[in-house]
């Protein structure tokens, strides 16, 4: 733009200078022509000009037509590069005429000059238009007016000769100016094009620069974003790496821990297996040892049984004559019971145990032996029940029979008996039965639950327990029976009937007083009745028999009077306190008076014997009361407790019996 501005300034300057000179020359020319033939020449030139204009007008290109429509007047040419009056040779008349020439940008215009006045102004539409870019300029020397003539000719037209014109000037300077200017205009236009191209390129460059800047900015933003993203990405990568490393470390640590734990588990398992194997071996060792123990104890037991037969029983039986006989057959059986039978039983058992232990192995069983072959042990019952009788008989024979005592001394000196007393041998069958249970229990403890023998041993223990308990119970019943029989023999019944059943058991016996002043009497407490006797002249007279179904007891010395009766149904087991004073009065029983004893007087004074806490009352059928006095408060409490317990037991038995009756009726 600056270049164009500078160039336009030059052209404006040159145009101003040329214009002033040009005006001077034009004035001189007009004066010469008007001096010759003014009118004729001027009219002819007008006509020629019109015809030429029309032809040219037709042949002009579309572009020139359009330009011509736009530019109707000289006033519309606002920025001419150069303008002035030049001489143009006409086409057909070949006359040189004055025309006003104007150059604007790349187009050359020429106009008709106004006639009348001397103003030299162009008028009307342009007579001719040349596109200077398509024209060539040549210098012509053939004309008369040479050397001041040059030719303008369009190059692109179909008719080359048609559109051309010859232009001349008055002065050489003006001629030179125009002749030099016209090619320069082309050059200028070319330059302009180049500049335009350059500008376009420049603008394109600018645009590119803008785009580039935008791209750069966007790139920068992208880069910044990229940097941020890079930072975040780095952070994320860092975090990821940290997490990864942590996970690796954790995996490593877990693996190490797992290895350690696994090693510990392996160690523990190995220890456990060692301990397990050791326990198994120890158990098996212990099991075998206890089995050996069972065998050896059975051997020694059977040996002792046979020893008694060899030393005592057989010599006593085998005496030949009556004089040498020490004991009778009944006495021998009384002392030794069924000893030979026990020897048979246990020698058979010993054979079985020996057979088991000769074939001993880990899988050997021994409990089945005790399940199948111990029914014969029930025959220990007569021996055990006879033992007390045997002991007494032995003591009697030892003290009474001199021959037997000598025989025992000789037998005791025998080496085989190890200086043991005969009573030490006689106690051994009683010791042996509970011992089986101990041995089998130890054997069961040493046998694992998976072993085949464990089940057998459990059953064997149960069976041995049953046998021993049966023997124990038989012994207990035997004792009770002998006790009751003995009491029955001693008692003398005059008026009162006293009957004992096989189930009668003695619970307690002791001395009592029925009243304070009377002598001591004796009382038996059985499981179904209470018997009060009086001892007179080597005899025991039954004075009172009280059935326990009708009996109640009351202790007046306790803080609250505790009455235990079957009728009221109360069950109180309460030992009385010994701090309360004795109640004063007692009531005598008409039954006692009817038995022939002296009448009991009512006494209001307390005697020192049997005062505090040593009496309680018997209530018979809720009517009659008997006061019983005892030696000591402890004895009274014991009697009270035993009677109360017996009454409770009877009541429970009655209830159970009623329940069973109800069940039978329901069924």
């Amino acid at each position: 733009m600056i270049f164009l501005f500078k160039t336009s300034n030059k052209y404006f300057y040159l145009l101003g200078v040329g214009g002033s000179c040009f005006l001077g020359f034009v004035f001189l020319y007009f004066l010469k022509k008007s001096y010759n033939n003014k009118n004729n020449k001027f009219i002819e030139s007008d006509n020629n000009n019109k015809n030429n204009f029309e032809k040219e007008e037709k042949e002009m290109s579309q572009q020139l037509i359009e330009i011509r429509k736009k530019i109707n007047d000289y006033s519309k040419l606002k920025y001419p590069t150069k303008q002035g009056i030049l001489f143009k040779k006409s086409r057909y008349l070949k006359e040189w005429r004055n025309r006003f020439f104007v150059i604007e940008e790349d187009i050359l215009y020429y106009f008709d000059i106004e006639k009348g006045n001397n103003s030299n102004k162009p008028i009307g539409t342009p007579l001719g238009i040349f596109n200077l870019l398509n024209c060539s300029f040549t210098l012509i020397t053939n004309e008369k007016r040479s050397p001041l003539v040059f030719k303008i000719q369009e190059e692109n037209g179909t008719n080359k000769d048609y559109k051309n014109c010859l232009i001349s000037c008055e002065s050489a300077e003006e001629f030179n100016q125009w002749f030099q200017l016209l090619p320069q205009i082309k050059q200028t236009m070319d330059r302009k094009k180049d500049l335009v191209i350059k500008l376009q390129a420049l603008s394109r460059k600018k645009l590119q620069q803008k785009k580039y800047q935008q791209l750069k900015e966007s790139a920068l933003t992208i880069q910044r974003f990229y940097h941020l993203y890079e930072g975040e990405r780095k952070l994320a990568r860092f975090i990821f790496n940290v997490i990864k490393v942590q996970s690796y470390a954790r995996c490593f640590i877990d693996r190490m821990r797992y290895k350690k734990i696994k090693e510990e588990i392996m160690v523990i398992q190995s220890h456990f297996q060692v301990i397990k194997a050791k326990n198994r071996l120890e158990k098996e060792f212990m099991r075998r040892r206890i089995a050996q123990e069972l065998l050896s104890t059975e051997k020694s037991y059977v040996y002792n049984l046979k020893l008694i037969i060899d030393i005592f029983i057989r010599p006593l039986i085998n005496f030949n004559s009556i004089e040498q006989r020490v004991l009778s057959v009944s006495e021998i059986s009384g002392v030794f019971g069924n000893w030979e039978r026990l020897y048979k039983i246990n020698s058979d058992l010993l054979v079985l145990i020996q057979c088991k232990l000769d074939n001993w192995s880990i899988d050997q069983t021994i409990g089945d032996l005790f399940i199948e072959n111990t029914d014969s042990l029930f025959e220990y019952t007569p021996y055990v029940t006879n033992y007390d009788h045997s002991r007494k008989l032995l003591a009697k024979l030892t003290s009474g029979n001199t021959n037997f005592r000598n025989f025992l001394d000789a037998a005791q000196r025998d080496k085989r008996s190890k200086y043991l007393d005969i009573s030490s041998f006689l106690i051994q069958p009683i010791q042996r039965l509970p011992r089986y249970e101990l041995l089998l229990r130890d054997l069961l403890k040493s046998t694992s639950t998976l072993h085949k023998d464990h089940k057998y041993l459990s059953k064997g223990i149960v069976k041995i327990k049953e046998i021993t308990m049966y023997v124990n119970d038989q012994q207990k019943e035997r004792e009770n029976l002998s006790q009751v029989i003995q009491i029955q023999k001693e008692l003398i019944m005059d008026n009162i009937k006293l009957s004992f059943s096989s189930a009668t058991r003695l619970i307690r016996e002791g001395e009592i007083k029925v009243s304070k002043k009377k002598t001591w009497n004796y009382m038996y407490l059985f499981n179904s009745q209470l018997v009060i006797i009086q001892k007179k002249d080597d005899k025991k007279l039954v004075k009172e028999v009280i059935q326990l179904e009708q009996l109640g007891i009351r202790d007046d010395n306790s803080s609250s009077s505790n009455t235990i009766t079957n009728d009221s149904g109360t069950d109180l087991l309460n030992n009385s306190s010994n701090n309360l004073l004795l109640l004063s009065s007692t009531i005598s029983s008409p039954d006692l008076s009817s038995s022939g004893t002296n009448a009991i007087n009512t006494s209001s004074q307390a005697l020192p014997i049997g005062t505090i806490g040593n009496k309680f009352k018997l209530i018979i059928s809720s009517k009659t009361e008997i006061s019983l006095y005892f030696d000591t408060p402890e004895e009274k409490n014991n009697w009270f407790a035993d009677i109360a317990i017996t009454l409770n037991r009877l009541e429970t038995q009655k209830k159970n019996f009623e329940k069973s009756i109800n069940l039978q009726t329901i069924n």
Partner: protein
Amino acid sequence: MQTYKVVVLGASGTGKTSLTVRFVNGDFVETYDPTIEDLYRKVIETNKGEHIMLEIMDTSGTERYLAMRDLYIRNAQAFVLVYSITSRVSLLELENIKNYICQVKDRPISQIPMVVLGNKCDLEDTRVVFPEEVEALTKKWGIEDFLETSAKIDMNIQSAYDCLTLQLMSKQSFLNGSSNGKDKKDKKEKKTHKKDSGSNNSSINSSSSSLSVSGGSNLSISSSCSSSSFSNLSNSTSSTSVNNLNQSQTNAPIRTKSKRSLKSAKVDKNPKGKC
């Protein structure tokens, strides 16, 4: 040589067999209790220089069979009552056993040679029974000797049997008159003596004759004896009971002296053991 039968009684699992085996054989079986011998014999020397034979019967396994245990008790002359200091139930069981012994022997406990032993005293951390309590209980029962023993570390076992031997020596007169009838006579004679001292002679004669009849259940006395002989017998039994009471009174200082001598004997024995 005198032979005395001793029975070791106690609840199940108190260490009766271990105690007996330690006393007789001198060893302790840790993991296994041998039951080879049911009867253990031991000759011991008393402070008087005499030798006596103790036959010790082990009652392992008979704890729940009371009637069969009864047969042991009748056959025996001295008793060792064992409880475990780690089990209170075993101590409570001793009272039942003590009452049962008195019932079977039909005699007050002061006339029966008896010691109470608290076994397993090496298990101090599991102790639930303390000696002060048992001391008071045995005094209440009337048993003179109470010791805490351990079969494992052989503690106080010899002392226990020494005390039992002393009791056997001191109560020997009762052992000689071991029949129940005489004991019953003594008991009833005491009662009549205390309560009917102001009565006349005829009541004495009648009561003594009735007592002799009751005592005759154990002895085979013919009915042809006269009443005068019965009265003579009763007089002699009463005099013997008085003598027995005097002897029991005089035995107490002897027992204390013998205990002291035993302690001094132990002190003397210690340097010998060291040498």
